[in-house]
């Protein structure tokens, strides 16, 4: 297993990053850290996906000198998917950061648990 993992080093790293990001997103209390965790998780998934398209010894999928052999280029599909994914991740980041600003304006805290408690108390008034 270890040997296989050392061959799949990009995936291994991607998976470790995914775990780290997932945990930060789920269990860190600071909202900004949570958002960073989300970003780490997303980029880890993209690294995983992009490494699936890589083929050793082949070139960028941009046609040069009219060469159109399959054996010349790497798989272009994952790159395209990741490109789409990056846009999605920057959109959600912007949205969550603006929510964070509004919540901080209101409750003067970045701690999600604290915000939830304060919001509950505010509702009861």
């Amino acid at each position, binding site marked *: 297993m270890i040997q296989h993992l050392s061959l799949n*080093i990009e995936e291994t790293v991607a998976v470790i990053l995914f775990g780290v990001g997932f945990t930060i997103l789920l269990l*860190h209390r600071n909202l*900004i850290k949570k958002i960073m965790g989300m970003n780490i998780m997303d980029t880890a998934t*993209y*690294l995983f996906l992009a490494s699936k*398209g890589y083929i050793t010894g082949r*070139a*960028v999928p941009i046609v040069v000198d009219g060469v159109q052999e399959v054996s010349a280029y790497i798989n272009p599909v994952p790159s395209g998917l990741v490109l789409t994914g990056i846009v999605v991740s920057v959109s959600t980041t912007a949205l969550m950061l603006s929510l964070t*600003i509004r919540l901080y304006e209101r409750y003067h805290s*970045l701690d999600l648990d604290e915000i939830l408690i304060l919001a509950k108390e505010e509702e009861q008034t």
Partner: protein
Amino acid sequence: MRLFECILLLCLIVCAVSVAFTRDLLTSIIIFMSYSLLMCLIWMILQSPDLAITEAAVGAGVTSILFFLTLKKIRAIRKEEQNEQEEG
């Protein structure tokens, strides 16, 4: 090349973990920015320059700017509150 890649990947993990454990928000944002730049290099190695350009412009550029702005906004709010407390 392979060794270089391994070093970069190791740096990625170090960055991600230190984002989780840094106390100061500004520091962790800067670490996160360097994480994006490392990712950009890795995508160059994986033969995807499209992704590298996008990551450099978006991940290291726009996303980091948004994080900095949020932090700045939060500090401004904090400062105002302190001023009010001193007055009151």
